C-alpha cells in the first residue's frame, strides 16, 4: 500500500475544527439559559454584579468537594459522608481556634499563628478520616456505600459531640477571610490575577500546540486555536470585570475608614473584586485537573474505574488507590469546611447538612458516570454552579421551598437522562 495521508482531517467544517467538547458546550448553554430565564423573571436582578458575586461564593464549598467526588465516583465508589465530614472538620477547627489554642496552648485570642495552625490541623483531620474510610473500603472490602452511610451518622454526631451542639464563633479574623465577602482581592489585584491567568492559559495552549507539532501530530488550524484563546481570555477578564463592578456599599466603606481613624474622601469608591474563596476553588480545580490528566495517580484512577481487573493486572495497587482517593476527598472536605464556616463567620451544628447530596448531584450533572471511568473536574464545578443558580434563582423569584427541592430533584434526574441519550448518540457508553 502506498503512503496516502489519511483524508479524515481535511474535510472538517469551521465548527468541528475547534475541537471543543460538545458536552461542555451543552452544559454552558444550559447554565446560560437558566441565568437568562431567572434574569427575566426577576426583572434583571439575577444577572447583577452583586448576585453573581454571591452566587460564586455560595458555590465554592460544594464545588470544591465535587471535584473530589469525581474521583470517588470514577473509581466506582460513592461518598455519602462528605457533608458530615465537613461538619466534623469545621467543628474541630472552630474549637481549635476559639478554645484549644487560646486556652489550652496559651496562644491567646488573635494570635497570628492561630488560623494557620487551625487550617493545617483541620486538613490533617479530614485527610486522616478520609484515608480511614478508604482503608475500610479498599482493604477490608466493605462497600463504600455502607462505610460512608455509617460515616454520615458517625461524623455528623462527632461534630455535635465536639461542640455540645453549640454554635461556635466568632472565628479568627484571618480565618474568616477564606469565606467570601470578608476576604476579597480588591480591584487592582483582581485585574493582576486576571491578566496573569490569561497569560498562563495562552501559554498553556501555545506550548501544547508546540509539543504536538514537535511530534508531528495533527493540530487544529491556527485560526481555531486563536479563537479558543480569545474566548478564554474574554471569559476570564469578563468574570473579573463583573466581580470588580460590585462596589462595597459606601456605608460599609465609611465604617472601614472610621475603624482606621480616617475620614473617607468625598466620592471614594472601592470594589470587592475576586473573593479569596473563589481563588481557592480555582487553585483546587487546577490541581485536581492536573492530577486527573497529567499524573500517574489520575491515570490509575480512570483506568481502575474503566476496568478494575485490567488495572490490577497491570500492576496497579487498587486498594492503596482507594485509600488515596478517599484521603483526597477528606482533605477537600476540610478545605470546604474552612470556606463554609468562614462564610458563616461561625460553626453551626447543621453546617454541611445535605451537602453530600448536592456534591454528588453536582458531579453527576457535570457528566460523571456512576458506572465509573468517566468524569471531569470542570464538569463537576459547572454542575455545582448550575445547582446553585437554580436554587438561589428560585429563591429570588419567590418559589415555595418545597417546590424548589422538587425542581432540583427533577433537574438532577433529567440531566442524567439527557446525558445517557447523548452518550448513546455519540457512541460512548
Amino acid at each position: 500500500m502506498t503512503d496516502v495521508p489519511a483524508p479524515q482531517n481535511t474535510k472538517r467544517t469551521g465548527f468541528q475544527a475547534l475541537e471543543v467538547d460538545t458536552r461542555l458546550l451543552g452544559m454552558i448553554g444550559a447554565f446560560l439559559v437558566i441565568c437568562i430565564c431567572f434574569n427575566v423573571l426577576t426583572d434583571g436582578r439575577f444577572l447583577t454584579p452583586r448576585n453573581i458575586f454571591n452566587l460564586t461564593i455560595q458555590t465554592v464549598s460544594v464545588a470544591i468537594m465535587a471535584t473530589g467526588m469525581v474521583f470517588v465516583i470514577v473509581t466506582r465508589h460513592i461518598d455519602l459522608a462528605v457533608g458530615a465530614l465537613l461538619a466534623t472538620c469545621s467543628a474541630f477547627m472552630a474549637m481549635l481556634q476559639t478554645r484549644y489554642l487560646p486556652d489550652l496552648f496559651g496562644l491567646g485570642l488573635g494570635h497570628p499563628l492561630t488560623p494557620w495552625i487551625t487550617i493545617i490541623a483541620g486538613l490533617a483531620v479530614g485527610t486522616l478520616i478520609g484515608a480511614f474510610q478508604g482503608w475500610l473500603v479498599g482493604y477490608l472490602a466493605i462497600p463504600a456505600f455502607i462505610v460512608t452511610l455509617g460515616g454520615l451518622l458517625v461524623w455528623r454526631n462527632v461534630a455535635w459531640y465536639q461542640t455540645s451542639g453549640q454554635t461556635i464563633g466568632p472565628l479568627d479574623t484571618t480565618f474568616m477571610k477564606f469565606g467570601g465577602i470578608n476576604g476579597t482581592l480588591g480591584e487592582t489585584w483582581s485585574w493582576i490575577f486576571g491578566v496573569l491567568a490569561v497569560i498562563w492559559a495562552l501559554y498553556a495552549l501555545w506550548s501544547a500546540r508546540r509539543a504536538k507539532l514537535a511530534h508531528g501530530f495533527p493540530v487544529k488550524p491556527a485560526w481555531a486555536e486563536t479563537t479558543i484563546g480569545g474566548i478564554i481570555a474574554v471569559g476570564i477578564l469578563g468574570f473579573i470585570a463583573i466581580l470588580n463592578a460590585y462596589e462595597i456599599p459606601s456605608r460599609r466603606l465609611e465604617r472601614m475608614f472610621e475603624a482606621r481613624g480616617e475620614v473617607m474622601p468625598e466620592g471614594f469608591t472601592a470594589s470587592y473584586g475576586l473573593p479569596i474563596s473563589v481563588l481557592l476553588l480555582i487553585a483546587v480545580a487546577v490541581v485536581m485537573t492536573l492530577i486527573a490528566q497529567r499524573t500517574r495517580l489520575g491515570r490509575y484512577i480512570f483506568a481502575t474505574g474503566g476496568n478494575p481487573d485490567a488495572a490490577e493486572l497491570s500492576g496497579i495497587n487498587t486498594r492503596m488507590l482507594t485509600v488515596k482517593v478517599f484521603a483526597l476527598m477528606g482533605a477537600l472536605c476540610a478545605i470546604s469546611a474552612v470556606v463554609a464556616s468562614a462564610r458563616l463567620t461561625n460553626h453551626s451544628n447543621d453546617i454541611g447538612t445535605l451537602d453530600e447530596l448536592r456534591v454528588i448531584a453536582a458531579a453527576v450533572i457535570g457528566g460523571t458516570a456512576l458506572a465509573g471511568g468517566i468524569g471531569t473536574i470542570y464538569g463537576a464545578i459547572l454542575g455545582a454552579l448550575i445547582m446553585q443558580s437554580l436554587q438561589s434563582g428560585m429563591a429570588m423569584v419567590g418559589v415555595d421551598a418545597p417546590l424548589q427541592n422538587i425542581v432540583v430533584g427533577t433537574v438532577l434526574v433529567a440531566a442524567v437522562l439527557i446525558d445517557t441519550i447523548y452518550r448513546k448518540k455519540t457512541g460512548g457508553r
Partner: protein
Amino acid sequence: MAPLCEMRDISISFGGVRAVDGVSIHVNPGEVVGLLGHNGAGKSTLIKILSGAYKADGGEIYVEGQKANITSPRDARRYNIETIYQTLALADNLDAASNLFLGRELTNWMGFVDDDRMEAETRKIMARLNPNFKKLKEPVSALSGGQRQSVAIARAVYFNAKILIMDEPTAALGVHETQMVAELIQELKKQGLGIFLISHDTREMLELCDRVSVMKNGQLIGTERVEDVTEDDILSMIIMGKKPDQAA
C-alpha cells in the same frame, strides 16, 4: 541449557478445590508451548500464577535457570513476563497509548505523564504490528476486536517480553485478524521469545505450537511434540484424560 522458563510442581487451591495440582511445564527460547483442556481444567489458573495474578500454594518458578519469586503482576514484569489476557485486560475508557503504557507511564522531568511521547511511541509500534491502526485518540471501547487485540499485543512486545503468555489470543477475532496473530507469533518466535499459548482450538494449536500440554481437572495429562501426535490423540487426552497409547 536451562529452559527459558520453568514451572515446577505448581499447586493452588480455592476453598478446598485443587484448581492446579502438581503441574510442571517449561518453555525454551523460540518455542511455543500450547496449553489445552476443558473449561475449568486449570490452564488459565496455572498461567495466572506465572503472570503474578495468583500466588501458588506450592511449587517453584525458574526463569533462565534462576529461581523467581513472583507474587504480583509487577514482579512478573520485572522478569520480562508479559501476559495477553483472554479478557484483553484493557481499560475501555482510555485511549490506546494510555492502555499500552498502563502501570509504566512515560513521565517528563516534572513527573507528569508525557502523553505526547507515549502517543508517538504507540504510533511507532502500531506501524509495525498493525499498519491500519489509526484510532489513537479514541477510547479503546470504540475499537474493533482485532484492534483491541493489537493494543494488548503491542503492550507485551513494546516492553521487550522474553516470556509471553497468550490466553485465548484469537477468541474474539475474525479470520483475517486471527491470521495476523498467527504471523505475529511466528515473528516473535524468530526473535527468541518463549510463548505459552492457551486455546480451545485444537487444530489451531497444532499449527502454531511446537509442543502441547494437556490438562484435566487441575492435573497435567501429558506434554507431546506436535509432530508425534494427531488431532485425535490430543482430543482423547482432553476428553478421557489419558495418553493415546494408554487408551484401550
